[in-house]
């Protein structure tokens, strides 16, 4: 079940030495009404509000694991 982008930003300032720019998305989960997920967005273009997304998990800052969202592809 796809998530839906609620909002996003593209970050251009390197706060911790990370390569920039990168986009971050806040995603509504179709099956949960009152929580969202925030993560990186990977795609050829900037994300858009309302876009459907899929998720995978990758290593993030500080040894943590973070969600990485990609465009939802219908099979």
């Amino acid at each position, binding site marked *: 079940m796809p998530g839906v982008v609620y909002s996003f930003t593209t970050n*251009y*300032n*390197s706060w911790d030495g990370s390569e920039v720019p990168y986009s971050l998305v806040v995603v509504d989960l179709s099956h949960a009404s009152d929580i969202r997920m*925030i993560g990186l967005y990977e795609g050829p273009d900037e994300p858009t509000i309302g876009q459907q997304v899929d998720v995978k998990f990758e290593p*993030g*800052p500080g040894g943590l694991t973070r969600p990485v969202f990609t465009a939802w592809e219908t099979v």
Partner: protein
Amino acid sequence: VSARANWRRPVISGLGVSEIGRRLDQSSQQLTVDAIRMAVADAGLQLTDIDGLATYPGLTVSLNPGFLGPDLYEMQDTLGLELNWHMGAYQGAAQFVALIEAAAAVSAGLCRHAVVFRTTTESQAQGRARRGGIGSGGAPTEGNLAWLLAAGALSPANWAAMYAQRHMREFGTTKEQLGWVALGHREHALRNPRAVFKDPLSMDDYLNSRLISSPLSLFDCDIPVDGCVAVVVSAPETVPDLSHFVTIESVGTAMRHKPYWEHWPDMTTMASHDAAHHMWQGTDLTQADVDFAQLYDGFSIFTLMWIEALGFCARGEAGPYVEGGFRHSLASAMPINTWGGQLSGGRLHGWGFLAEAIDQLWGRAGDRQVMNSEVGVVGIGGGVVAASLLLTAGR
């Protein structure tokens, strides 16, 4: 008659502002002692009259270098105060938690004259480096910021940007309208001798500045400074002995939603909406009575949120409200951020707004003075924390 029958309106009797600037060669303790001594003298009191002391944030986790001022015990000892009431606190009604608790303490009779201070040295701590992310010393994996930091949303600029983006999407708010906040604040800063930025800012300058986190660019973000603001909060029964005072008519301290930026149900609103609603519940005054507004601007979008939260325009209309800059100006019926805000005046973390409100109500704002200034509103905080104050000139 106030809707809050037991709120024995406390007053602010003195204001002290230390030197404020970029990379000051002064310790956090020195700035604090300076501001406190000025505040006590301004109230016409001696340090021996002070029986309450409070600060935000006190001893807690330091989110940025220079975020913490001296802690409460350190200042009690430095000044040799004998206290009946004291507190240092971070969790509560944003950067005013200690101020509002002090107001409640004098109102309830726990002490008579409380000094409350906020000191920041984020500029000297930053040095000549670029501004870092939150928790640059290692991301906290607990608490309400954990998921943001894990995702790489390391700066409040990222979090605020997502609110701005959503506001733009739902209401058609434009980048230029955000720009009018920055320009309006800069226009006031030109008349504020304490302000950090004293050069004019044009819309071209604004639009051509580098992007930080879309849609926010450099001039949408506040500028770190070093400095301390201290006030004396006094009990209502001390008013006959005071030479001047500002009355704390009502306060807003509400917290009604999840304390996570990313889970906030409607990201075209912030905690400011709850705080403002709570503040208006405690008074018979209304928006029409307000002569000026000092509205937090850690990022430009926060000021737009506060304008809507306080009901100065309808939901979604803050962009058009600020367009052209007239609403900000001294010519308008309710000028906004007359000291230049944190965008141009400097990031005193909310307390610059309070200092300006007090100066305005006492007619001490010089070239920035709002005529017939009797009622002022101060709204502090962004995202999931907020506090607001409704202040009236003492009489």
